[in-house]
């Protein structure tokens, strides 16, 4: 699917657009920026398993091709229970934000709408931030009137808190999994014993039934 042509084509951005993009992104809080190549047919999906009550902020921009034409894409974001969180057709950029109501796998699917440009692959820049990365530091800086080094240290403090929360989450997950493992362990022992019991019971029943049958037939 992806060959050297993809790398060459995606590297050749018009520089002014790139600079604007960079400036725009640099004013955004610390987050993500991955590029995906959308084929002309078919869907590309990215998913993430997110806990409950987490802020998700995402930005997507379609990068124009060499000849200035911007291909249009469609986006669909679904929650783990199938609820539609964001659905846009035929756009070149957009953003969505939501707070997760349920823990599970959140899916964001992209597909290209430019069917006429046969063979052209749209490059989408996806800026996906969850949790601490989605925090709006600008408003915190304005509200508490801090800036520069103090703001940076405040960001680091936020990152440390996020690390602590993640650790607690991992710990609770491990506890859940340990419960499941121990239940399965107990079940294996129980079911194996029961299997032996059923085997003996069934063969006993067989022998008893056949004995009764032959006695009725006056063969024994």
């Amino acid at each position: 699917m992806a060959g050297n042509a993809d790398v060459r084509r995606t590297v050749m951005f018009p520089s002014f657009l790139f600079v604007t993009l960079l400036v725009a992104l640099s004013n955004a809080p610390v987050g993500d920026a991955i590029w995906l190549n959308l084929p002309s047919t078919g869907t590309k999906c990215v998913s993430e398993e997110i806990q409950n009550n987490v802020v998700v902020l995402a930005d997507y921009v379609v990068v124009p091709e060499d000849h200035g034409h911007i291909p249009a894409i469609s986006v669909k974001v679904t929650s783990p229970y199938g609820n539609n969180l964001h659905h846009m057709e035929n756009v070149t950029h957009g953003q969505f934000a939501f707070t997760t109501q349920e823990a599970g796998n959140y899916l964001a699917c992209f597909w290209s709408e430019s069917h006429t440009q046969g063979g052209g692959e749209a490059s989408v820049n996806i800026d996906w931030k969850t949790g601490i990365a989605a925090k709006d530091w600008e408003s915190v800086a304005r509200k508490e009137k801090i800036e520069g080094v103090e703001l940076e240290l405040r960001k680091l403090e936020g990152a440390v808190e996020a690390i602590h929360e993640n650790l607690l989450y991992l710990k609770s997950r491990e506890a859940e999994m340990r419960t499941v493992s121990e239940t399965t362990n107990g079940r294996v022992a129980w079911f194996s014993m029961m299997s032996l019991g059923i085997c003996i019971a069934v063969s006993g029943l067989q022998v008893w039934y056949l004995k009764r049958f032959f006695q009725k037939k006056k063969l024994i």
Partner: protein
Amino acid sequence: MKRWGKMWALMGLLLLNWVSNVSSLSVTVNDVECVYEYVLFEGDTVSGNFVVVDHDIFWSSDHPGIDFTVTSPGGNTVHNLRGTSGDKFEFKAPQSGMYKFCFHNPYSTPETVSFYIHVGHIPTENNLAKDEHLDPINVKIAELREALETVTAEQKYLKARDARHRHTNESTRKRVIGYTVGEYIVLALVSALQVLYIRSLFSKSVAYNRV
């Protein structure tokens, strides 16, 4: 030319505190899936990890693995891992530009890969214009941030591994219940069939001195 120089300096300042970071995203790899990430400065450390989360191995206990390749903007392969079901990687970017991270699945079953890529930059003298000074505190803050990022990356790796372990556990649990109940039913059925067969051997339609 001077205007461009000032623009790059301005960008450099703006980006001094911007570290490219990716959430732990998952993609389904059918054959080849490529993700691109832009590296701003040459010499930046690109680190990350990936774990194959959703796989359905039936008999064997070991996952056959997927291949992971990182290509630099110049077309060279910077990093290459074959047949792994998850690993961490780190390399120093030889040039700035768009890097391609590709997952290749040599088998027909689609796999879900959870990955995390982080481009870390520590400001050095080279990134600023000649008339700007490098504040040592900014360097220290950047180093601290990078250290915290390694911890976060490790946590994301653990989370992905935990998700994979959970899949295996769930699968084991289902198999234990499913196969045991199936075993009981088949056992009961087989013995009933045995009895029926022996009965039919003694039925009136077949002369029983033939038995």
